[in-house]
């Protein structure tokens, strides 16, 4: 069989190239020769502010390091993992890739990303990490090693349309703080204005699981505990039941989950819980049309909220020491104070370095102009890591979970039963 032999051959080559980086020479201290590295990036594939800001960052980097040329590969966020995997299979190893946290364990264990601790000198790494928020650094770690360096990341935040609040007879200066209030306000907006009340960006094809997980964790639930799935257990299921009740009461909209952000941006939705990365583009569409405001994510009564991180980390896959150095320089540049000033002000992601927030040389003037962004910054101190699934079938398990959540929230059957059935099926596929 021709095909099988080819596969085996590719497998052998890939296996050799995926040996732990420790087997290779240590990367040099600087880049002396011209080198080209590839950078897989999903912000570049978006039509919103992300692409412009990323181009600006890369131009800045190439100016600072004339020896290094970046070859960018733009792929939408929900396809970038498959693309990286396909390219590795085809023998086109990416050097640096921006990937989302849900694939973290798989990237570290199967895809052969380099741990920064193995690649970079310990003191140099320590200098780089200084000033970064520890919760942020924690996000990209597997078994104590940093495989992904948190890059563009964010927490869910409640965008709301103050004009609709006014029309519904609600006080726009008092956004809902608990889910009960979201329910009441959403119902009022739906009934008085005919527009959609509330919708979370938790069910669409590009949404991943972070908004859903942060709602679950705010109620004390968790999607898995070790290798045991727990998303149908009481606290987690109660959170989903709360969403279902809002659907039944009319406060939670029933719209196409793939275009929820468009619906909000068009002024047809009162409240939208989603990543702050959308801020720039929503602000642009809201300008002159409606009064856009932000609030922290709502809580379950007095329980503390658990905003989880959306967004991405940077992973290095290079095998060649020269390219590793160039890749690491790119990582350093993209997580520098200058870079986060651009990333936060132009896209809306959180800065991994908090010391720049009030610094007049960096984000200071922008935060002063955009005080509403503080709601997002405030959530940083209880940032909770998004939980990735382990094992070779992690994607299927995750899909089963999200399918059952959609069924529980929008279906007609018993929500807890839907979650339970999926949990049982999914458990079979866990390692």
């Amino acid at each position, binding site marked *: 069989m021709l095909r099988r032999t080819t596969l085996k051959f590719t*497998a052998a080559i890939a*296996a050799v190239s995926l040996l732990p980086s420790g087997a290779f020479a240590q990367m040099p201290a600087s880049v002396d020769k011209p080198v080209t590295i590839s950078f897989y990036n999903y912000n570049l594939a978006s039509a919103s502010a992300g692409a412009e800001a990323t181009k600006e960052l890369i131009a800045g980097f190439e100016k600072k390091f004339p020896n290094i040329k970046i070859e960018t590969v733009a792929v939408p966020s929900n396809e970038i993992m*498959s693309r990286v995997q396909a390219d590795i*299979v085809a023998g086109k190893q990416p050097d640096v890739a921006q990937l989302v946290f849900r694939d973290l364990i798989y990237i570290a264990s199967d895809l052969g990303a380099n741990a920064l601790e193995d690649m970079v000198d310990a003191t140099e790494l320590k200098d780089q990490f200084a000033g970064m928020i520890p919760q942020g650094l924690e996000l990209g770690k597997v078994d104590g090693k940093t495989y992904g360096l948190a890059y563009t990341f964010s927490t869910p935040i409640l965008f709301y349309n103050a004009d609709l609040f006014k029309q519904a007879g609600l006080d726009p200066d008092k956004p809902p703080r608990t889910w009960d209030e979201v329910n009441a306000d959403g119902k009022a907006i739906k009934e008085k204005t005919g527009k959609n009340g509330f919708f979370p960006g938790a069910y669409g094809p590009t949404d991943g699981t972070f908004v859903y997980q942060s709602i679950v964790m705010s109620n004390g639930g968790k999607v898995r505990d070790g290798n045991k799935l727990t998303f149908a257990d009481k606290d987690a299921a109660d959170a989903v039941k709360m969403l279902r009740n809002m659907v039944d009461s009319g406060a939670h909209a*029933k719209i196409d989950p793939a*275009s929820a952000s468009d619906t909000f941006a068009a002024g047809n939705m009162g409240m939208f819980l989603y990543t702050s990365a959308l801020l720039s583009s929503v602000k642009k569409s809201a300008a002159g049309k409606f009064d856009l405001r932000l609030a922290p994510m709502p809580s379950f009564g007095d329980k503390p909220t658990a905003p989880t991180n959306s967004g991405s980390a940077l992973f290095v896959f290079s095998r060649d020491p020269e390219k590793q150095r160039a890749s690491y320089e790119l990582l350093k540049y993209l997580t520098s104070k200058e870079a986060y000033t651009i990333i936060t002000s132009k896209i809306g992601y959180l800065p991994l370095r908090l010391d720049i927030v009030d610094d007049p040389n960096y984000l200071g003037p922008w935060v002063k102009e955009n005080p509403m962004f503080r709601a997002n910054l405030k959530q940083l101190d209880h940032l909770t890591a998004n939980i990735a699934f382990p094992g*070779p079938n992690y*994607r*299927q398990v995750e*899909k089963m979970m999200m399918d059952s959540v959609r069924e529980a929230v929008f279906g007609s059957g018993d929500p807890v039963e839907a979650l339970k059935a999926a949990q049982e099926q999914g458990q079979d596929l866990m390692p």
Partner: protein
Amino acid sequence: MTDIQAEVAGPAAAKTASTRSDISRERFSISPLLYLAPAVVLLMVWTYIPLAEAFRLSFYQWNILPTSPQRFVGLTNYQRLLALPEMRNALWNTLYYTIGLFPMSVIIPLFVAIWTQDLGGRARTIYRAMIFVPMIIAPVVAAILWRWLLNEDQGLITLTLEGLGLGRIGFLTDPAYALPTLTWITGWKLIGFSTLLFSAANAGINPSYIEAARIDGASRWRIICDIRLPLLSPTILLLSMMTVLFGAQWSFAYINVLTNGGPLKSTTNIFYLLWEYGFQTLSAGWSSAAGMIAFAGFAVLAALCMWLTKRFAFYDN
């Protein structure tokens, strides 16, 4: 066609009977094999080897990464798939797409082709061009246009319906409407293609039959029933077969762009499901097993369609 077959088969059969010794003398000639080789190689590389490979992979658990091991799991993939409610659901939906497409891929085009036949020169061209336009629009562009038209908040169609007092319909967000909507979009795209084929076949009918029928005093309707429809039967059967075998596949682009199989799995079909298993959840085993199930089902259908075609198609000798 039967005549042609007879002509080809006749002498050849006679030859095999009478000159068996000639053939055994020529047995070692390599040139026929060389002529066949390019086609056979292409067929092997693009069809049969992948098919065999998919069959093999359907018994393994593997995440499409060359470095990770392929673990033999026997029939587990099939068992799991058949136990999953979404698989049954997808099979039902596949059937729905197939049957739902018939009116738009066979019945309406047939009528349009026959009625436009009698239109005058330029009017006929313009009319047919209009019907053919959806065919040449890229599927993704068509899908996005429909998304705009059907948008619940500001879609042109939704607003019109509301203006008529019918209320807003969530064409793509209500599980009860999503499947018919996607079937309609797929069919709308096909009408042009089918009409073109029917018009071509219709134009190929010898006009002297119709002249003769007219002289005999046959009405328009009689001519259609007794002359046009029987002579169009090969095309009707061909398009029916294509709809049965490929109809559900044609809807893939619209499912992918418009609903991602939702809301609540109401629009997923078997092709979308196997793509999802393979490239969204990176499970080669599940995807191959789903593919094999689809392959077996459609092989049976194809055989049935071939039999029907042989039985009912009427050719003008």
